[in-house]
């Protein structure tokens, strides 16, 4: 880490003063069938430059040294692009809105400078019936995979890639499709939704594929099957409150939900029915 030579920055450099002392209240649950509870942990000397996940790594090292079971949490790229990490931080999905002056993406992009010395931080897993807890903060999100399997794809003959200019796509459609395609399937929308609905996730996929020419042949079947699957998984219904979009690390808009509804009504009128 490079430090500037000038006074004020150097004075606040993390190694020149003791780090923050934090109380962490973390959901501990040994496995899916056990009951969980919040457990308090003290962590001293937390650097404001740590990411939230690095802070959890430090806690886990401390727990392992003490011979205790480390806290299980999901993570992978730690660059805000894979959708693997995600926990409720002080009641907000990914701690969204805590990163002052910065656009926050996922939990891995939240830094400890967003907290103060002496803070108590509540950390819980995503809570929804279709997201059962595997252990502690890690949840099983395969229900999202099954929604994708129900229609979140296009069927193409594999082989040589086609000429890119063979299928023109209007710029506006390409932009909107790409905005929707930025969804990384992290599950923050479900976690933040008062109804535990997966509508924003499904709507992002329906929008992404439905706006592109390649998505047209399966458009009607896609929307009815994906909606049918999300109901079957046990997600709640959408009441258009907007918590999902506000929590989304990729800023997927509520517009996608309206588009899904529009497509679904059109598909039902056209006679599309979910396959059982």
């Amino acid at each position, binding site marked *: 880490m490079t430090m500037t030579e000038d006074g004020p920055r150097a004075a606040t450099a993390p190694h020149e003063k003791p780090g923050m002392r934090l109380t962490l209240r973390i959901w501990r649950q040994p496995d899916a069938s056990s009951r969980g509870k919040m457990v308090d942990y003290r962590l001293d000397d937390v650097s404001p430059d740590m990411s939230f996940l690095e802070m959890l790594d430090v806690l886990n090292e401390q727990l392992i040294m003490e011979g205790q079971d480390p806290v299980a949490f999901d993570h992978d790229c730690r660059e805000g692009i894979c959708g693997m990490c995600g926990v409720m931080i002080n009641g907000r999905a990914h701690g969204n809105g805590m990163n002052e002056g910065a656009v926050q993406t996922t939990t891995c992009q939240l830094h400890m400078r967003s907290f103060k010395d002496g803070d108590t931080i509540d950390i819980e897993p995503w809570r929804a019936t279709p997201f059962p807890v595997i252990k502690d903060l890690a949840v099983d999100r395969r229900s999202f995979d099954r929604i994708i399997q129900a229609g979140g794809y296009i069927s193409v003959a594999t082989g040589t890639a086609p000429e890119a200019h063979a299928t023109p796509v209007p710029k506006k459609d390409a932009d909107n499709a790409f905005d929707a395609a930025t969804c*990384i399937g992290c599950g923050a929308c479900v976690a*933040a939704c008062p109804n535990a*609905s997966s509508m924003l996730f499904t709507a992002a996929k329906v929008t992404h594929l439905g706006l592109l020419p390649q998505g047209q042949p399966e458009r009607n079947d896609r929307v009815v099957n994906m909606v049918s699957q999300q109901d079957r998984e046990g997600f709640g219904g959408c009441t258009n409150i907007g*918590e999902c979009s*506000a929590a989304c690390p990729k800023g997927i808009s*509520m517009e996608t939900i309206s588009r*899904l*509804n529009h497509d679904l*009504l059109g598909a039902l009128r056209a006679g599309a*029915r979910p396959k059982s």
Partner: protein
Amino acid sequence: MVTVTTQSGQRRAPKAAKTSSVFKKVVMAVSGIILVLYLIAHMIGNLKAFAGREDFNHYSEWLRTLGNPALPGSTALWIIRLVLLAAVAAHIWAAVSLWRQAKRARPQGYVTKKAVAQSYASRTMRWGGVIIAAFVIWHLLDLTWGAVNSEGHDGTPFDRMLASFQNPLSVAFYAIAVILVGMHLRHGIWSATQTLGQSNRRREVTVNYAATGIATVLTLGFLLTPFSILFGLID
């Protein structure tokens, strides 16, 4: 993305599209639109109170004989009542069903949960709806059937209205219910537009202003008559 698996997690029998959560929302939206159109007509009718006893009672008599002589007696009124009853039943069925689905989707709540985007209006849709339903029953007992009204069923509609709204407690209940209806509409109109797939990023602002506008006009329109009676401006 999470691990890809080919294992099927389907535990329950597949449901038809007709019982999907989105279909329930469409039932909610369409029945809601019928009820909003009725509320607009009802508010205009209420404002007849300012035209005086004669006009108000005449208007209420006209409602009973609406469609005469093409339709006999109160046929038209009963058709309207049946449509409203069906709309209310459908609205409540969809709401209860989605409420239960939401409860099943998260049986264990968060220890700490902060709302980031939800409005007071959207948060009070369910319990607000329950209070509104209770109010509607009392409202019918009071002003339509006269069962809980001091003028009883024998008084004229105008007399029953005066009797009810000269009582501050009655006006207070009415005002609370009407304000809840206003908030219900504030979120409901926006939500119905989304559910019917008619919203987009460009229209979102307009839809929300329209929802606030319609909700405000209806709330004020409904509050005008009872408060005017309470303060003796109509007698």
